């Protein structure tokens, strides 16, 4: 099936990056404003799905040679490691720790362990969504 989707492809080349960047922004901003790992992950997978729509599965796996199932595993691992952190410090599991630091360039910001947990969530969401889409897409 040969289609003329030049416009879609050209737009995708730009739009995919914008969406990805926005996804990262939403992911990082999630602690104080609406957003977080779940939404960020969904947006990232939306960008990849857009790539899939514009090009075919082969091209996209060429660009992003990622085993999404391992991605789920790593996401779960990061999250549960954050959860288990309490074991090593003698506090209840999932205890949230944060610290205000002054970084060059970025200025006065706060670092949270919640971000690590959210990173895991982000990876799991991207992994799960892409696994589902690939499972359905491949069999066609």
């Amino acid at each position, binding site marked *: 099936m040969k289609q003329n989707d030049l416009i879609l492809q050209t737009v995708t080349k730009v739009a995919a990056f914008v969406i990805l960047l926005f996804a990262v922004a939403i992911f990082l901003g999630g602690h104080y404003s609406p957003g977080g790992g779940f939404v960020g992950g969904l947006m990232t997978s939306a960008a990849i799905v857009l790539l899939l729509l514009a090009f075919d599965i082969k091209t996209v796996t060429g660009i992003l040679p990622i085993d999404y*199932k391992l991605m*789920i595993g790593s996401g779960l691992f990061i999250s549960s490691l954050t959860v*288990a952190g309490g074991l090593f410090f003698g506090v209840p*599991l999932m*205890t949230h720790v944060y610290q205000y630091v002054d970084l060059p360039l970025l200025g006065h910001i706060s670092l949270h362990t919640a971000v690590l947990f959210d990173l895991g969530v982000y990876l799991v969401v991207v992994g799960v969504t892409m696994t589902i889409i690939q499972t359905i897409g491949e069999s066609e």
Partner: protein
Amino acid sequence: MNNLTFMPVLWPLFTGILLIFFAKKIKLQRGISLFSSLIGIVISFYLVITVHNQGILTLGVGSWDAPFGIVIVADMLSSLLVLTTNIIGFAILLYSFYSIGEERERHYYYPVFQFLLIGVNGAFLTGDLFNLFVFFEVMLMASYVLLVLGGTKIQLRESLKYIIVNVLSSSFFVIMVAYLYSVVGTLNMADISQRISEVNQPGIISVIAIGFLIVFGLKGAIFPLFQWLPGSYYAPPIPVMALFGALLTKVGIYSIFRTYTLMFYHDQDFTHTFLAILAILTIIIGVIGAIAYWDVKKIIIYNIIIAVGVILFGISVMNEQALSGSILYIIHDMLIKAALFLLVGIMIKISGSDDLRDMGGLIKQYPAVAWTFFIAAISLAGIPPFSGFAGKLLILQGAAEKGAYLGMAVILISSLMVLYSVMKIFMNGFWGTPKADYALTNGKVNKMLVPAVLLVIISVLFGVGTESVYPYITQAVDSLMNPEIYNKAVLKE
């Protein structure tokens, strides 16, 4: 604060994650799962001992204290059930090595197995109503995957039904949680219990109690809500079936245990009588199914429904004896149902059919299988000194004390019928003349027999040694009969 409380959940989580990375290396996966299951048993055993010595353990997750954060609570009932779960998980895992097939092993069978254990252990340990819902969902998601893994036609069809029924009941769960939250304004079980006892359970709470009965009844397969069970449990391969039969329905029953002794115990004339009627009807329906079928799997599946009825009847009587009877019986039933499913699996493997009319004379070639099945069968029926006896006796004593003679009669008659249904398997399957030459390599059958024998031995020890287990059961019943103990331990007042 004690992080040990959450270890039975965290440990399988890490195992499951690790297994995802070794999905293609089957030998390694088996090794890791087996090792982790052994450690799991040790952890939960340690938990039981600690709870026995120190009383109820709690953990305010994320340093948020009850009632504001989620609390994980290990009282005696939860920790005993967690221990049983881990033992059964170990036995079924061992059995899976020889029967589940490489295809399934390569498609994430072992990781999902661990995730199922997370859900079950978590549901037993949580002290928060919404968190219970979350662990239910973890368990259900894992069970969906296990049910559909392999993708045969019957599995696909039954999974669809099973999932739709469970999605419905999950929505119902959320709805009931919403109603309860709007009435009492909290989700911590201990806090709910306290607030309900302050207002002495008005009508609206009783309505919500029945709503929760519907939710948990759908998972636990009580009378009008059990129709999905015989079909869905029939579809998957034997190890998965054993896992479901031994664990999943029991999580539903545990939740009824918890809610009906901790929160909704003020209007027993209404809620507990309702529960008693449903329990009796459940037993009757189960008995009819168990004696009607000639299919070995179906017979054992209907026996699950009978056991659900017996345990629920014990809860509905709600006095000290009946509750300790129910606890003994739920542990006995988990062990013995798993063993029976595994044994039935071996029978099907040998004879190549699940219809009793095609079997016969297996005892000649496989005496060990036959006698293990015999012991399991009479334990199930509750013949002394085996494990089913003490539980049933205590439930009956409790019922007699309360004057619930109808229920007593039904349970006694059901015991006879249970005995008939399993003896039917024994006589038609093992006795008589062999219908064919069951030439299977004996070594494999012996290997498959090991976990079943293990479970039967544990259940026999449990039956013979009921006296020495009894202090633990009394401790569990104490916190069920006196919710103040539980509330005090959780809310630390």
